[in-house]
């Protein structure tokens, strides 16, 4: 039995193990792995997710048991200190010797810390391991408790530095990215795209300082600032260094391995180092005189080393390595591929820039206009996958190459064929090297029948996840080519989409959830189909959330939003944001009486937080007594119609936005929908109500109102698009009735109007036809349905407080009147707040 020792249990060391044990010949080998981190290998690429969930297990590439189950001996928390190449053995920090037949070095790299005076100070961090993140979080917390506006700098404006910038923002500190070069991501971007990216990052609250060389870290024990030149300093409370990487090649000195001048073990295309039977892979390997700081080449190296050791000498590294990258996580798309910028003698560039939308696109094409050589995308990298594939596979370009970036968009068309047009050899998932052929075959040969199956069987999309949309397309297209219908079913209990369910329930006259399960579903239901059906029943029969309380989403069941610590919030409706002083006083009095935290919401109303379940009915009784109604802040239903002050007061106002906002809010209040609905009315084009950031927005213009639909704020902001212009109040309402009802009938669960429109074939033009021109001859029906719902509106809190049966629901315990003793509050700025979560 031969012995393979792997030094380093990082991403690439792990991939080596995985690939090794999947080979049949592996049975003749003993595999031992040493890692000096306290835990088995984890997904460093998604390290930043640790800030969100602090769940180290979720990052694990495989649990410790996996190694044992596959006959691998994993020794964690043990550094290898020496290699004795002559005797073919290594020594570990605890002094033990381990002989080997083959040695695989996968020791990765460490962040490069430039020798700036003061870098040793407290509060200076690097960004590489879970322990690094834990240190940063603890330190940031300390800063946050000491002062309100803590700042943290990131040294280095590369790929990783920007990711760290976002992390700093999430830790509640003000981020400052300091870059030596005159542009961001100097290796991937040209000056113009960097400028666009800078604008976007600044709009997110990340400060950028370019062309800055740091001379000194200021502070006594802990960092208090950075000095760039005598009169140029930046006050910061913390610093994260992200200035490149240095290979961890200490072991080379112990056995005379050939190394590069800036470190790393020199390897050939077989991953062999200068010593026999010693291989190097991943970020430690110096191939073509380069260290590749990405996982994909590392995984390819692991494959080569496995094949070489197991006797297949033909598998070698390609001479050229693709370094295309897409930035992830930080809420802005950035990608570069191939040759991102090039001298004019090699090719020509097509550029598109729109600073108002923070987008920049550049593609480089050969002089004859036939091949794509590379490119840069900032702000909108939706087409990265397909462009990258066109580049990798040398696919022919369309006649008008500019369509690739400016698109035949808007009319729903695209300059690209579908992913199916790619050759079978096209690499779809570059992290795992999975080709289009492998993905499609897994469907065509019958072994897989869904996206989930394919991911499980091929491992595609398990790395950075960037290829997910393409894999989904390929899976769906392959299924279709076999005559299999691909449909979005809502869950395992109903083989129908929401739209189909809506139709069936209406036609069959099904009125209860159990009846639906028994007649058109199976099993006992779940948290996906229950609220979806509840919403459908509400639209068809105008049920409030008090009907069948147990199938309502948890918040609807208690007609309030659950908060950290299990208490609830109370949000009365304040149509259009208009409220009398008397009502304001009542809100204050109720809040005082029940000791509630009060806050003005982003939706122009007042939220009273921290109500115990048992108190909700009494609180609402008092609010209802003075005329308040439920604000449905908990529901997938109409929230607010936001309004500016409008022509009654404002010197620019063209129409009475408040009056119209109130009218619209009164009309659609209580309307339940696939996702929440928000509206806005602005009195003029200055748009103080942010109406175009809403599902429907109305803006007063010369000669009437402009009506916009399908916008939202949130994680993926979308501006609403113009549906009709210069129309009067009645026409706005008529179009809105049609639009809203059509959306409610046809959207999938939890899809907001903007995402729904994106999927609607024909896009906004088609929607105009349906709503304005009535091309489907549905208008009458849609309007009648809406009018029916409007007529039957009832405030569900009013129903609840007068009905003893419903009131019983609002008790934490059923067998005693005692309160939940687990609810704890602490003080904050003269109000209360939940005790913070610690895990």
């Amino acid at each position: 039995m031969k012995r393979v020792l792997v030094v380093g249990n990082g991403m690439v060391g792990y991939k080596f193990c995985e690939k090794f044990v999947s080979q049949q010949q592996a049975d003749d080998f003993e595999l031992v792995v040493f890692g000096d981190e306290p835990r088995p290998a984890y997904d460093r690429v998604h390290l930043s997710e640790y800030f969100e969930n602090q769940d180290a297990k979720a990052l694990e590439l495989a649990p410790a048991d996996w190694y044992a189950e596959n006959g691998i001996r994993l020794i964690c928390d043990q550094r290898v200190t020496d290699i004795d190449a002559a005797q073919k053995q290594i020594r570990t920090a605890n002094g033990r010797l381990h002989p080997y037949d083959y040695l695989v070095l996968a020791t990765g790299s460490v962040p490069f810390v430039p020798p700036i005076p003061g870098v040793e100070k407290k509060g200076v961090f690097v960004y590489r391991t879970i322990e690094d993140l834990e240190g940063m979080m603890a330190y940031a917390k300390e800063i946050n408790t000491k002062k309100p506006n803590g700042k943290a700098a990131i040294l280095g404006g590369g790929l990783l530095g920007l990711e760290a910038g976002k992390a700093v923002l999430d830790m509640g500190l003000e981020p400052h990215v300091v870059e030596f070069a005159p542009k961001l991501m100097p290796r991937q971007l040209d000056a113009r795209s960097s400028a666009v990216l800078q604008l976007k990052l600044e709009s997110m609250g990340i400060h950028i300082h370019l062309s800055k060389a740091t001379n000194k870290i200021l502070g006594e024990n802990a960092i208090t600032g950075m000095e760039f030149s005598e009169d140029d300093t930046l006050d910061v409370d913390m610093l994260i260094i992200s200035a490149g990487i240095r290979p961890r090649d200490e072991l080379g000195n112990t056995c005379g391995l050939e190394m590069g001048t800036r470190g790393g073990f020199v390897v050939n295309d077989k991953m062999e180092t200068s010593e026999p039977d010693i291989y190097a892979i991943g970020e430690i390997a110096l191939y073509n005189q380069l260290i590749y700081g990405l996982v994909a080449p590392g995984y390819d190296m692991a494959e080569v080393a496995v094949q070489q050791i197991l006797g297949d000498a033909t598998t070698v590294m390609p001479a050229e390595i693709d370094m295309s990258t897409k930035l992830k996580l930080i809420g802005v798309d950035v990608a570069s591929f191939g040759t991102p910028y090039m001298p004019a003698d090699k090719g020509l560039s097509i550029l598109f820039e729109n600073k108002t939308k923070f987008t920049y696109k550049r593609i480089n094409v050969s002089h004859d206009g036939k091949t794509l050589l590379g490119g840069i995308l900032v702000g909108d990298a939706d087409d990265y996958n397909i462009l990258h594939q066109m580049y990798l596979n040398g696919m022919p370009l369309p006649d008008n190459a500019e369509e690739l970036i400016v698109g035949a968009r808007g009319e729903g068309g695209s300059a690209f064929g579908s992913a199916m047009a790619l050759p079978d050899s096209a690499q779809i998932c570059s992290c795992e090297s999975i080709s289009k052929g492998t993905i499609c075959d897994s469907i065509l040969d019958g072994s897989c029948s869904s996206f989930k199956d394919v991911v499980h069987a091929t491992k595609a999309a398990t790395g950075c996840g960037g290829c997910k949309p393409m894999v989904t397309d390929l899976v769906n297209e392959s299924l279709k080519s076999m005559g299999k219908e691909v449909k979005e079913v809502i869950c395992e209990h109903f083989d129908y989409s929401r739209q189909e369910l809506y139709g069936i329930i209406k036609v069959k006259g099904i009125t209860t959830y159990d009846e639906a399960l028994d007649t058109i579903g199976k099993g006992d239901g779940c948290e996906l189909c229950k609220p979806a059906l509840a919403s459908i029943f509400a639209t068809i029969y105008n049920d409030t959330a008090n009907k069948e309380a147990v199938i309502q989403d948890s918040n609807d069941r208690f007609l309030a939003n659950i908060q950290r610590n299990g208490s609830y919030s109370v949000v009365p409706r304040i149509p259009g944001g208009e409220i009398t002083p008397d009502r304001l006083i009542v809100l204050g009095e109720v809040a005082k009486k029940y000791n509630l935290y009060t806050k003005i919401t982003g939706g122009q109303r007042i939220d009273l937080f921290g109500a115990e379940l048992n108190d909700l009915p009494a609180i609402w009784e008092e609010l209802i007594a003075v005329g308040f109604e439920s604000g449905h802040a908990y529901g997938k239903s109409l929230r607010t119609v936001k309004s500016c002050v409008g022509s009654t007061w404002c010197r620019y106002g063209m129409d009475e936005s408040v009056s119209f906002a109130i009218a619209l809010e009164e009309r659609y209040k209580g309307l339940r929908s696939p996702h929440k609905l928000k509206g806005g009315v602005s009195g003029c084009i200055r748009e103080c109500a942010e109406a175009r950031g809403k599902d429907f927005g109305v803006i007063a213009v010369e000669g009437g109102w402009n009506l916009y639909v399908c916008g939202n704020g949130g994680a993926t902001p979308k501006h609403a698009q113009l549906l009709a212009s210069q129309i009067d109040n009645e026409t706005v309402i008529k179009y809105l009735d049609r639009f809203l009802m059509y959306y409610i009938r046809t959207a999938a669960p939890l899809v907001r109007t903007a995402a729904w429109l994106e999927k609607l074939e024909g896009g906004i033009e088609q929607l105009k036809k349906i709503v304005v021109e009535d091309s489907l001859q549905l208008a009458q029906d849609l309007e009648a349905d809406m009018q029916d719902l409007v007529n039957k509106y009832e405030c569900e809190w009013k129903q609840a407080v007068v009905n003893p049966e419903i009131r019983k629901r609002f008790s934490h315990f059923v067998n005693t009147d005692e309160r939940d003793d687990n609810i704890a509050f602490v003080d904050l700025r003269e109000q209360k707040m939940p005790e913070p979560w610690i895990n």
Partner: protein
Amino acid sequence: MEALLDNYNTVAATTVRTWFKACKVEDIPKNGGACIKYQDKQIALFNFARKGKWYACQNLCPHKMEMVLSRGMIGDQEGMAKVACPMHKKTFSLETGENLNGDLQPIATYPVKIEEGFVYLGFSE
């Protein structure tokens, strides 16, 4: 926090030493749940009428240590009865306590019996 969790350990039907008379059958909504207080414990009790079964488990969600599971929606995953936490929709098997959509530690479950219109919860102490 750990102490909170330590207070909840699965009780097998065979090790029940106390049957606690918790409430009347009609106190718990059909196909829904509610919370029972027993000494210093909060127990989520579910009347899974569709299956004709009753389930009980700790009210404490191990995700963020909130006493909320009784307010969750119940249902099944491939036949296995489950509850979804109202906070972040982590789901737990009501039969084994296992976290079905993540790797949180399992929740404790308790035996339930119905006698003469009353619901009893089984405890081992």
